């Protein structure tokens, strides 16, 4: 699916993106390219900076340096207005859902829709019900509050909120972690559908290799603050990079030790 878009501008280009917290350098120069209508999966050990990478991309955290281009437009020193316009094209889910506790599910799901266009209460509720039933949730859930739902249900509502107004670019931070395999499968299919049928571009952080194989055209692995390998999903097993091999097969022995992770985290 990538081939016919090879020569158009990539949707997202990160070059040498760096980010430190205090004197701990988390990102040491991330280079990444995502073509339009491509589905990229980002893998890497916990705490290696995957979530920070997505947050920097959207300007939720300010990257310290490097270049971030969305549709060719440089965002690294973008003003507020430019940043807000750029974010409108994105839908994002957060690792822990980040649903608004004080609002019922239907208001959560239609939050952005209702910021952008006037909707009656009934229209919004219908839209919310339609979106969450796609994700295998019962329609009556729309009147409940986030705290009343299980973790897996919250994750699906968060996903519904991100895709409700069909954004061009989707960022998913561990959308299937902690879910049963069947629900995970439903979410994978939703991501695949968004890319294949709606023409969205997707970046998904995932630890679930089965899911990565289903959803991703391309896979990038983050380690020590850089992308150590990036290639087609089909070549993941023959990357020739020890860390990738270890991660993909979940091996306890290899260069990715817990000690090395702790080291990296200390900066």
């Amino acid at each position, binding site marked *: 699916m990538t081939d016919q878009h090879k020569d158009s501008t990539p949707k997202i280009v990160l070059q040498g993106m760096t980010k430190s917290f205090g004197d701990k350098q988390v990102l040491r120069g991330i280079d990444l390219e995502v073509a339009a209508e491509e589905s990229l999966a980002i893998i890497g050990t916990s705490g290696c900076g995957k979530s920070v990478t997505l947050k920097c991309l959207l300007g939720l955290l300010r990257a310290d340096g490097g270049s971030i281009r969305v549709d060719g437009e440089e965002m690294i020193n973008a003003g507020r207005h430019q940043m807000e316009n750029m974010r409108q094209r994105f839908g994002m889910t957060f690792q822990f859902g*980040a649903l608004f506790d004080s609002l019922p599910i239907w208001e959560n799901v239609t939050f952005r829709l209702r910021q952008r266009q006037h909707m009656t209460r009934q229209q919004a509720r219908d839209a919310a019900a339609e979106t969450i039933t796609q994700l295998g949730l019962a329609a009556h859930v729309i009147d409940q509050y986030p705290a009343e739902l299980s973790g897996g249900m919250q994750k699906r509502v968060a996903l519904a909120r991100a895709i409700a107004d069909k954004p061009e670019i989707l960022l998913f931070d561990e959308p299937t972690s902690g879910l049963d395999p069947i629900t995970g499968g439903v979410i994978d299919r939703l991501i695949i559908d968004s890319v294949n049928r709606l023409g969205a571009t997707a970046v998904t952080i995932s630890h679930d290799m089965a899911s990565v194989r289903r959803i991703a055209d391309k896979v990038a692995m983050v380690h020590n603050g850089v992308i150590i390998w990036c290639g087609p999903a089909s070549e993941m097993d023959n990357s020739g990079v020890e860390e990738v091999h270890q991660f993909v097969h979940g091996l306890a022995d290899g260069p990715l030790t817990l000690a090395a992770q702790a080291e990296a985290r200390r900066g």
Partner: protein
Amino acid sequence: MIGFLQNIGRTTLAFLAAIGRLSLFTLAAVRWTFLPPYYLRQLGRQMVDIGYFSLPVVGLTTLFSGMVLALQSYTGFARFSAEDTVATVVVLSVTRELGPVLAGLMVAGRIGASMAAEIGTMRVTDQIDALDTLSTRPMQYLVAPRIVAGTVCLPFLVLIGDLIGVFGGYLVGVYRLGFNPSIYLSRTLEYLEISDVTLGLVKAAVFGFLIALMGCYHGYHSGRGAEGVGRATTNAVVSASILILIANYIVTALFFG
């Protein structure tokens, strides 16, 4: 020695940075308050929370303060046979000073803490980031309604608190100290001027602004995890209380001069 100086330098820099951050936050908060869109439902929710649900706390505080004030001033003034000034002392102290300050401190504990905890939790659970990704400015959606509600509601709370405080003084004056009710009331009103009440209400508005600002600021910049939210909550209450006492002096001095 070098280490000591370094420490002082670092602390000073951190302090100045915090002042700068707070100033920027304040400017942004005020600016976004006046720019559309306005989230009226959020505003209504905050007004109910601050204005209505603080009534019992403020009422009880001012009631007993008015009562104790009547007793104490009676004891004091009886020593030079000026007992009949009790009503005047009570009403002036309550409207000019005790009403706004006590209500301010109580509301700082109640509302400052809950704002910092709520916004801080939203920060650490990425809800504030989520707002940003959903075409909503957190400054307008979260901060502006709280600041408006705080500034508008506190004067009303204090006005009601003033009435209750004066009533407390009246109860003690009439039922404990044996004043004639109608004389007590006329004494209460005799020397009271509009400017006394206005001063109290101006103070209340300033305090309400400071309480909401501190709650929002500390919540917004909350550190990570439950610990970060806990610290934000404490800082919000402590800083709001201190600022209230400082602002109290400044406003009084301005009106005085």
